[in-house]
């Protein structure tokens, strides 16, 4: 298995899945026309990667805007992480939210509140 790196564009985030370091990162804004197409390789990668339950993963999600199409994909990623955790896999998810956007923290909580894997909500300032 190889690491996966995709450069960011205006409407799609940077994908940085580092296989050797067990460090996964998605950074940027996400509003492609069809998120299923954009995230196809990323979802396939994560699915294969999480088959090994003996990893110790850090996953940083620093997404400053998600359209509804992308929000569905992020929901699926979190479900993958939940399954991995349920099988005793080690994971820490850092969800970064924008300190100066009043909706941003609640939005993170809506995504995370029903999950039981370890996660942190971390404020940051964009740019």
């Amino acid at each position, binding site marked *: 298995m190889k690491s996966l790196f995709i450069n960011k564009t*205006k409407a799609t985030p940077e994908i940085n899945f580092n296989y050797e370091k067990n460090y996964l990162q998605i950074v940027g804004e996400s509003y492609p*026309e069809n998120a299923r197409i954009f995230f196809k390789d990323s979802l396939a990668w994560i699915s294969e990667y999480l088959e090994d339950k003996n990893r110790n993963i850090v996953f940083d999600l620093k997404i400053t805007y998600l359209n*509804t199409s992308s929000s569905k994909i992020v929901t699926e990623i979190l479900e993958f992480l939940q399954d991995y955790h349920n099988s005793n896999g080690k994971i820490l998810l850092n969800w970064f939210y924008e300190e100066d956007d009043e909706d941003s923290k609640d939005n993170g909580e809506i995504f995370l509140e029903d999950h039981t894997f370890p996660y942190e909500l971390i404020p940051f300032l964009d740019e």
Partner: protein
Amino acid sequence: MNSEIPIDCFNIFTIMDKSDVIFSYKGPVTQDILVAVGDSIKEKFRSNDVGNTIVKKIFAIFIEEAQNVLKYSFDKELQNDDQSSGIGLIGVGKKEEHYYFVFSGNVMKKSDVEKIKTKIDHINSLKDDELRKYYKESRKNGTLTEQGGAGLGFIDMARKSGRPLSYGFKELDENRAFFEVLIKIPC
């Protein structure tokens, strides 16, 4: 002195001006166009010292409305890459110091009118905590359509705005209706 021009620019300008429109676009809404316009919306409001929370709400609602037109408008134009983009009207404005608004309009199939009406009326009837719950359930249980639609657009717009979502339909003929929606974001 006046030479005849075949469209009424003055009338178009006056209607937009009277309606407090800051910016509006009519035509095929491609992904490239909405990215470019979305960008300038962000820049414009940021340079006017509008707070980040409001800028992000305007931007998010603009993108959702534009992608609705792109995906669901009945009038389509074929693009170079063999994909088609919906034709419609999108724009933003500001009503004095009360609220910003994001609007869109496009032709749709008349047979879809009832479905959309029911959905928006339901969203408008919900209290904040009910809307939060409805959003969460819909995001969890919904599936993406082939076009990448999550069925969450109006719910998400409602979460980010002042409700109710204003909308209207105008019947064009037995098959088509014009759908318009306007979302207010309190200043």
